[in-house]
């Protein structure tokens, strides 16, 4: 009985943890799905904008000494500014060209990562506790900061969803993703829309990075892992679906956490991938995706 209870607590604790970690995957997935829907490219460099947001937050919080909420805002702005520069200098020449966009984003990863190495070296940066302590219920323990991160990420994702479904800009974006020519004829300023979506996606990634910095140590290569999870989550949830991005991220997070309890944790990343493959076999367009 005691063992069963302990196991149940372990499961509940890790399911909660998986949900929280999954929202971090989800925010990147949201950026992936938005960028792909509007510009026709998969921006693999989104992980680097997450890294930028994380490092700027660390710098402003730990080195400059700004309060964390104030440090997050410029971090998101810097990530968005870098996103704008990348769009104007690079991505605007690769619109609707999947291969070129992919190559450019991979090149951008090298440049951003090398710059981060020059600026901050490879020494892991472990930001001080923003909010210490954990909520405990029996043996279930969830750090308070993880709860805050989850709440903020979920709020941003639902706000994004609401904006896209209830505002003129959102409807314009949907229209453009379905039929670009028709949207243009209806007065949608496509260049501004496409650049805006790229910048917003990088801002989302920067926001994810700023929250990530409050939980984990930073290193210049951190973006690589998260963009892979983000793409996985976007595919699992269905490319083009905003709710699917969140759901995909959470499913990945929970699968990895629960899988690590019953199976060797050395294959943690594989558990999520197996789930993706299994879902895609039955639902090729992803859980919430629609056939294109």
């Amino acid at each position, binding site marked *: 009985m005691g063992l069963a209870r*302990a196991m149940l607590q*372990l499961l509940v*604790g*890790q399911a909660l*943890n*998986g949900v929280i*970690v999954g929202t971090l995957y989800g925010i990147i997935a949201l950026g992936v799905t938005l960028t792909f829907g509007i510009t026709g490219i998969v921006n693999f460099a989104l992980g680097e904008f997450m890294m930028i947001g994380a490092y700027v937050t660390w710098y402003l919080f730990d080195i400059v000494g700004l309060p964390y909420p104030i440090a997050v805002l410029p971090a998101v702005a810097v990530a968005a500014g870098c996103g704008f520069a990348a769009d104007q200098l690079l991505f605007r020449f690769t619109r609707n060209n999947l291969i070129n966009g992919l190559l450019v984003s991979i090149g951008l990863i090298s440049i951003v990562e090398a710059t981060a*190495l020059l600026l901050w*070296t*490879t*020494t*892991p940066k*472990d930001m001080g506790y923003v909010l*210490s*302590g*954990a909520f*405990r219920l029996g043996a279930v*323990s969830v*750090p308070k900061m993880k709860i805050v991160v989850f709440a903020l990420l979920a709020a941003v994702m639902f706000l994004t969803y609401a904006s896209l479904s209830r505002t003129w800009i959102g409807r314009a974006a949907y229209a453009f993703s379905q039929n670009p020519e028709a949207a243009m004829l209806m007065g949608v300023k496509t260049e501004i829309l496409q650049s805006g979506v790229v910048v917003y996606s990088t801002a989302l990634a920067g926001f994810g990075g700023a929250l990530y910095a409050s*939980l*984990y*140590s930073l*290193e*210049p*290569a*951190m973006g*690589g*892992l998260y963009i892979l999870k983000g793409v996985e989550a976007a595919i699992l949830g269905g490319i083009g679906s905003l709710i699917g991005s969140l759901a995909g991220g959470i499913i990945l997070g929970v699968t*990895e*956490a*629960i899988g*690590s*309890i019953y199976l*060797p*944790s*050395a*294959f*943690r*990343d594989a558990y999520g991938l197996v789930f993706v493959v299994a879902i895609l076999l039955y639902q090729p367009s992803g859980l919430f995706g629609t056939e294109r």
Partner: protein
Amino acid sequence: MRQLIWLAILALIASPVAAQNVVKIGQIEAQTGANAIYGYMSSQGLALAVDQVNKAGGFKVGDKTYTIELIASDTRGDPKEASIQLKRLLETDGVKFVFGPFLSNVFVTIEPYAKQFNGKFLLMGGATRIHDFLGTPDHDFLLRTWNWDAGPKGFGNLMVDRLVKETGAKKIAMLFQNDQGGKVLVDIYTPLFKQKGIEAQLELFEPGTKDFSAVLAKLAAAHPDYLFPSYSDAHLYDIVRQATEGNYFRKFFLVRGSLGPGLKNKDEIDDYFVYVPKYFEQAEKTDPKVAKFVADYKAFYKRDFPYDQAPLCSSSCYDHLFMLIEAMKKAGSVDDVAKIRKELLSMTYEGLWKIRFDDRGEEIFNFDVVRMKRGGQIDVTGVDAQ
């Protein structure tokens, strides 16, 4: 005019002769990447030593004065990259002395290629897997520049012994990266714990993992006394933080990595039992050589001294260049690798560390064992391994 032309021709002929008075030193270490903590300090310390030697006008062997050209490559911890760099160093640059690697996964990949050049160069690396090849046929080129863990005088053996005697630990949870570095620690420490009557449980994690909550919860469910985590600071910062925050573990035992993660979480830990090649914060106050090194580092790189990473300068780094130069002087040659190796094996060098090699070519140096208690209270025990 004709004299001037002849002088110019002579100068042109003479210049390659001058260029020959250069000893090329290669280095293959991960200066960047997730496991760069091991190569970063080695590359920093070696570059500093090269600068000091060259600024002092070089060194004399016989009647010739030599300067050093350092060809330091960043492997990024990638074995393929390291293979290409080693090939370039040996076949294009004609390097006879290579420093590194510290990472075992890099070493096992370059080893089959490197042994084809046995007798033609020396490779001085800290990789744990080098131990397995020392003294075997076709591996005279190898020198291992770090203390060995196991065996009667092994530092790991001593650490486990102290753990048992000082804490009475009966059960330990090992959490390592699923790579060569992690597996070699499993191979070494599982029998060591068994010998001392400690029950060990093991979990491996994927490189790049950031959230360890699930695996920590799983390990903690068996109520071990200590957590023996990873080998790289890139993971240790996260593991120690998440282990204490989630109340999974508050006692840690480490034989790789730095004191940094423990210090960062000093108010949350109960015990942080760690092997540190040198506790620089203390040594700087008591040893003039260490104080000079710290000052020289700050002046050369114009940045703060990385106290947490500096202990890893114990491998293929600052001291080893000066040691190599001493060996060249004694051998009376800068390219007879057999003679130079022989001199290296027969000498004891007193630099930042007191260093000597055993007859197989494995280094033995003095080190520190640090125990940190809650609040950051530190107890340092120096060990003279000689």
